[in-house]
Each structure stands twice: as structure tokens, then as C-alpha cells.
């Protein structure tokens, strides 16, 4: 079989790591790190996700085809996030021409 039987101990260790990271992320919310609070929360969430995907979901032992599907999914999610946020962030940078028929001069920021 392509799938090895993972020892119970591995699952328990991963679970304990996940609990530790949950306590860490909760604890960090009580420490003032400025903008890095959000960075820390997301970094911990991504680590937890990686543990679940690699160990609980067994992608560690998956074939290359399944891995490529997983990576492609997250790549597309990253595109969705990046382009949406870029759009909203830069919308006010370019002046929008408006009401030219009134003869009002174009506005520049």
C-alpha cells in the first residue's frame, strides 16, 4: 500500500503542538506588539494549518499529483487576496475624470 500506517504517537504529538499554538496565539493577543499582533496571529494560524494538512490530512505521504492540486488551490486563493486588496488599496491613487461637460477643471490630488 502507498499509505503507511502513522503511529498514534505522531497524531498525539501534532495535537499537542496544535494546542500549544492555540494557547500561544491567545496569549500573544494580550501582549502589545503593535502591527505585529496581526502578523503573529496569521503566522501561527498558517503553522497550525500546515500541521493539520501535512499530518492529519496525510499530505506528507500523498502523491505528487495531490500535492500539486493542494498547492494550486492555495496559489489561486493568494491571487484572489492579492489582486482584490491591491485594487482596493490603490483605487484612490488615480484621479477619476468626472463632469467634464460642466467645464470644471480636472481635479488632481
Amino acid at each position, binding site marked *: 500500500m502507498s*499509505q503507511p500506517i502513522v503511529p498514534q504517537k505522531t497524531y498525539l504529538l501534532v*495535537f499537542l503542538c496544535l494546542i500549544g499554538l492555540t494557547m500561544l496565539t*491567545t496569549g500573544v493577543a494580550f501582549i502589545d506588539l503593535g502591527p505585529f499582533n496581526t502578523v503573529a496571529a496569521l503566522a501561527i494560524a498558517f503553522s497550525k494549518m500546515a500541521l493539520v494538512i501535512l499530518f*492529519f*490530512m496525510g499530505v506528507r505521504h500523498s502523491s505528487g499529483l495531490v500535492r500539486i492540486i493542494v498547492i494550486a488551490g492555495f496559489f489561486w486563493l493568494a491571487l*484572489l487576496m492579492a489582486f482584490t486588496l491591491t485594487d*482596493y488599496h490603490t483605487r484612490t491613487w488615480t484621479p477619476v475624470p468626472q463632469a467634464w461637460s460642466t467645464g470644471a477643471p480636472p481635479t488632481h490630488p
Partner: protein
Amino acid sequence: MTDAELHAEKGMAHQFEDLDQQHEADALGIWVFLITEIMFFGGLFAAYAIYRWLYFAAFDGGSHVLDIRLGAANTIVLLGSSLTMALSVRSAQTGNRRATVMFLIATMILGGIFLGVKAYEYDQKFVEHVVPSLDWGPEGETLARLAPGGVQHAEIYFIFYFAMTGLHAIHMIIGMGLLLWLVLKARKDSFTPHYFAPVEVVGLYWHFVDIVWIFLFPLLYLIGGRY
């Protein structure tokens, strides 16, 4: 033994060459489905990111109305259910029927606790009158927390809170139904070390729902500092 008998005994569908190929197809199929789910939730997360960026103070205020202890406790309960789910798949893999059923039931119990706590939290939102459009009108201490970011903008935060946790809860309820189906199937001795694809596929779905919560917890409960 003929090919057909071999297939029937091992629980292998006739279109596959061998069990490895069938397993590969099962894993690929569920992963493609999960990718569509990632994009489904991804749209919500992207909208959340935009509004959090636009009205950060309101999201900060809204987050402080939630009970961080209940959120953290529920996270641990859900991670526990992922552990029992993984152990259930392992038991099916080793052909231990009793353990498979036991771990499936444990997963259902933990999922039930999660949904119970969630229901209590939703009820608290009605008590505090922070349910958008149905019961919106925060007062007293709640209002004082929401006021700095703008009460109207805080309503947007709670729309995201209910949409995201609600969609997650619907996925949990579907998962509970699937687990019940697995328990009934496993009790009838339908799984063998050669054939346990349903347990594995539902397991992958359950872990995915867990991952969604792993992100919802910090993004909804832990905005802004509590220092």
C-alpha cells in the same frame, strides 16, 4: 479467483487497475472538492480583509464584544475532534472496527460540544443586541465598546461574524451527518484495511472544516490587543 471476485472482496471498483490507483483517485477527488471550498470561503475572507482594513477600529471594538475564552475553548475542542477523526481513519486502516466506531462517536461528541458552545454564543449576541438587522441596538457596556469605531461600522463586523461562523457551523452540521452515516456503515463491518475510503474522505472534509476555524478564531476573536 477471477478478477471480478478479487474486486468484490477488496472493495475495489471495476474501473481501477489496483487499490493504489483507486486510492489516488479518491484522494484527488476530495481534494478538488476541498479546493472549491477554499475558494468559497476565500471570497468571504477577502471581503473580510477589505472591511477590516477600511473600518479597523469598528472591527477591533466588535472583536472585544466576543468572549475570547469561549473561542479558545472551542478551538481546542475542534482540534480534539480532528485528532479523534485522524485516529478513526487509522483504526479503519488497521482493521480495528471497535476503535473506528468509538473514535467516530468521539468526533461527533466533540463536534456537538463545539456547536453547543456556538449556539450559546449566538444566544449571547441576542442578549447583547448585536445581531445585525434582526436584533441590532447595543446598549450600555457593549455600546461603549463599539462606539469608538462607529456603531454602524461595527454592524458590518457582526455581519461577517455571523456569515463566517454560520457558514462554518453549516459545514459542521453536514459533517456530523456524514459521521453518523459512517458510524452506521462501520457497525455493519463495511470497512476493511483494503477499503476504508469513505472514512478517509469524510476525515479530509472534517479536517478542512477545522482549518477554516483555525483562521476564524484569530481573525474574529483576537482583533486588536487585550492589553
